[in-house]
């Protein structure tokens, strides 16, 4: 999901450079990117643990093994329904408009950049998070 964050990262870098608070604009920008990546790394780790637990469970309960594809189908339907919820819609709108996000969520200094990165990461996770469960059927 990293490439799709590029427009926001570039916008943050531009605002940092133009405000000139920092001698090197890339430093707070990297704090922002780091916080964003932290959210995704945590999510990736949790998903992996979830997948391990699910496959462990599947080995103990034959019913899950026999109906693995059907359960996968159910997850796909749930992911589709999630796509239509207002949570997904609101977060997608936030994720899509970097100027708007920066205007309303701008944080000063390194701690502000950190907060902003975490917030943006969580918004984007909401956009993708449930759709990512759509890996599991194939996983």
């Amino acid at each position, binding site marked *: 999901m990293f490439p799709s964050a590029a427009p926001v990262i570039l916008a943050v870098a531009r605002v940092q450079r133009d405000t000139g608070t920092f001698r090197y604009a890339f430093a707070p920008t990297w704090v922002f990117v780091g916080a964003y990546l932290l959210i995704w790394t945590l999510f990736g780790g949790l998903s992996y643990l979830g997948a391990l637990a699910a496959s462990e469970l599947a080995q103990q309960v034959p019913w899950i093994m026999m109906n693995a594809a059907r359960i996968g189908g159910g997850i796909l339907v749930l*992911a589709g329904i999630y796509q239509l919820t207002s949570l997904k819609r609101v977060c997608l709108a936030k994720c899509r408009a970097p100027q708007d996000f920066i205007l309303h969520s701008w944080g000063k200094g390194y701690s502000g950049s950190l907060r902003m990165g975490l917030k943006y990461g969580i918004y984007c996770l909401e956009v993708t998070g449930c759709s990512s469960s759509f890996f599991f059927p194939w996983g």
Partner: protein
Amino acid sequence: MNIAAMALLTVLIFAEKCFPPGARIAQFAALALILYGTLVIIVPAALPLSGAGM
């Protein structure tokens, strides 16, 4: 993890986030997921599981 499924998801999210009709793409994806999921529930063989390739 299936690389093709991951690539597909990445393209979808990128399109939702970066292309002008993003919200519409999300709705289209919703419809596609629901239809395909329903198909898999009825015909489980429609879902290529890991090891079987895609």
